[in-house]
């Protein structure tokens, strides 16, 4: 045995089709995984530090820069946390339009992830351009849906990357009725396309997998939680945003620039599948019927259902946006006046990749004393490591290194890790002995 011992080290410089930079160290000893570490080495950007001393009115424009793919999540979470602290009551118009705006980001981000990042794996393609050669209609449909999501963000934010429309108290401006009518028609026309997308996503053969994990997502008494709700877990927890610290903790592991989060000392799942697991009863009857037709049963313990979960949420977001724009009338004012107050502001929303939590301590002049931002990817990081370990054992460690790497990448992409948020590449180092 001892003379058979060998060490194989594989160096894969880049994990493609994720947002951010990461690497994976895998050590296999005697047929067992002795070490598995997901390393995130996106350079630290220190957002929480340079928010200190900033006026509340600047926060939405600054936190947007944490992520180019989900800026709306950062803007809306910050705005709502501060509005709660300042005692600002949003008009029903502003509340509804925040949800519509947020739906645009879900549609854009999810469609980008499904078609450009995740789906090529399941068709043996290296990227979406290759996939477009064998599934041109599906890829083009996906890119059209993504473009519509961008257009919806643009409607309220003037652009979809780092939009400029949100202010504390509402929006800077209300879109004209003619533009809303035009958008409503496009959303309605996209519904059959999104239904076809759900059916297509359900038809893609996925590897079987069955894992036990806790799902964490926001839950709302009536609606499918996006921008409002309490924080719920699949073990029964239901808390408000300000009680987050009593149940969740962040710690820094030296191998990563992202902080790891735990729920009662355990890894947990956030994101589209966690949301569907907790909130499938909040889906409109029409979507529940469609899911029953496809045979997708919830809750699911197979993370490879994440792609389908995103497709379902695209359909939901398109319907929600269309519904909320039906009664659109121009508001008297798109924003409510704001008077700052000293104190602690906490808030959370469901970013495309999962729960996003913010905490700001503010002074009486409305300036930040300190800030804490817990993005979805750092919450998922522990779960990704746990999943990789279980999933690799299910897959079998005897596969060649290239097959192991591809499997790891598929697993990681299920989480759509936005590593720039967390603080793009997978460097896989496999050592076998």
């Amino acid at each position, binding site marked *: 045995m001892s003379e058979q011992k060998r060490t194989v080290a594989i160096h894969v410089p880049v994990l493609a089709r994720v947002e951010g930079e990461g690497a994976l160290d895998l050590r296999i000893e005697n047929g067992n995984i002795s070490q598995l570490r997901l390393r995130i080495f996106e350079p630290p950007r220190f957002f929480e530090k340079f928010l200190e001393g900033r006026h509340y009115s600047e926060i939405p424009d600054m936190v947007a820069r944490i992520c180019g793919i989900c800026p709306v999540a950062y803007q809306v979470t910050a705005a709502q946390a501060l509005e709660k602290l300042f005692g600002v009551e949003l008009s029903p118009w502003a509340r509804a339009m925040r949800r519509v705006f947020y739906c645009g980001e879900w549609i854009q981000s999810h469609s980008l992830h499904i078609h450009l990042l995740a789906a090529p794996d399941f068709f043996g393609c290296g990227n*979406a351009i290759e996939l477009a050669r064998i599934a041109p209609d599906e890829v083009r449909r996906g890119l059209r849906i993504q473009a519509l999501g961008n257009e919806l963000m643009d409607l309220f934010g003037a652009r979809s990357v780092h939009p400029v429309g949100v202010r504390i108290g509402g929006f800077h*401006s209300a879109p004209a009725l003619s533009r809303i009518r035009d958008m409503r028609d496009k959303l309605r026309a996209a519904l059959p396309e999104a239904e076809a997308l759900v059916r297509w996503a359900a038809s893609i053969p996925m590897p079987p997998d069955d894992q036990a994990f806790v799902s964490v997502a926001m839950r709302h008494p009536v609606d499918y939680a996006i921008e409002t709700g309490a924080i719920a877990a699949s073990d029964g927890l239901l808390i408000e945003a300000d009680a987050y610290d009593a149940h969740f903790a962040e710690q820094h592991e030296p191998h990563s620039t992202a902080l790891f989060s735990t729920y009662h000392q355990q890894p947990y799942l956030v994101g589209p599948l966690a949301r569907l697991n907790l909130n499938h009863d909040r889906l409109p009857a029409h979507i529940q019927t469609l899911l029953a037709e496809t045979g997708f049963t919830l809750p699911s313990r197979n993370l490879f259902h994440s792609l389908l979960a995103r497709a379902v949420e695209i359909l939901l977001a398109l319907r929600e946006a269309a519904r909320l724009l039906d009664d659109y009338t121009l508001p008297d004012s798109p924003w409510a006046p704001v008077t700052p107050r000293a104190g602690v502001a906490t808030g959370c929303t469901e970013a495309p990749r999962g729960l996003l939590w913010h905490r700001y301590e503010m002074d009486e002049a409305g300036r930040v004393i300190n800030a804490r931002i817990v993005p979805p990817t750092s919450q998922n990081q522990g779960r990704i490591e746990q999943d990789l370990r279980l999933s690799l054992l299910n897959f079998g460690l005897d596969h060649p290194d290239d097959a192991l790497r591809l499997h790891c990448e598929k697993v990681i992409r299920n989480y759509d890790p936005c590593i720039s948020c967390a603080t793009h590449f997978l460097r896989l180092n496999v050592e076998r002995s």
Partner: protein
Amino acid sequence: MNESTSKPRVAVHKFSSCDGCQLALLNLGEDLLTLAERVELVHFAEAGPLNPDTEVDVAFVEGSVSTPEDLERIQHIRAHSRMLIAIGACATSGGIQGLRNNADGAQWIAQIYSHPEAITSLQHSTPIASHVKVDFELWGCPVNSRQMLAVVNALLLGVAPRDNADKVCTECKRHGYPCVMVTRGIPCMGPVTRAGCGALCPGLGRDCYGCYGPAENANTDALAAQFAHLGLMPETIVQRFQSINSQAPVFLAAANKARMSRDE
């Protein structure tokens, strides 16, 4: 393979950034497939193709240089690229993370991470042109698809990309937007900020906050005086210039000047 040899070979590289400028390509919708027919995307990690070491005609670089490893990587990219184009505020000015250049970085790391020794980060976040020759800079946070396609089309036609360093005010006037500073007393950065966005913020009735960086011949003294006239405290004037493009020399100088008047 043969059909692709005549097409320009293009790479997209990422340094410290939010990924938002690459989205100017990934958000093209169906036009992305047309683009992929006209150029050969040989390296674009977020979209899939990986080939960081190959020779390319054009390298688009997003992000700022902020780690010791970045210093080597940007030299490598320069050596393998006929033309290097820096896209976005991070690559042209150091970006929003350049705000740390004014602070004690080591102390910040210690306040966020419990294992500060594991974090390798340079003291300063710097633009690409601080390290290598840059053939063209496209400013903006973020750059948009229209700007990116204009650059790609210029390259396909074999002409130099056009640089618009005029002010946001000129775009505002062309759109016929009422001036938010003159009509409502809102402290707008438009008079010193580079055009290219289409005056989005004044179009929504709010202030420009300078995300496209300094325009040519920006009269920051006059704007700082106007801000003071509108009642802004010196600290707030400093912060107006110290935001998305804090390390762009013109904005940095304006901020330092406002700081001096604050300390007097």
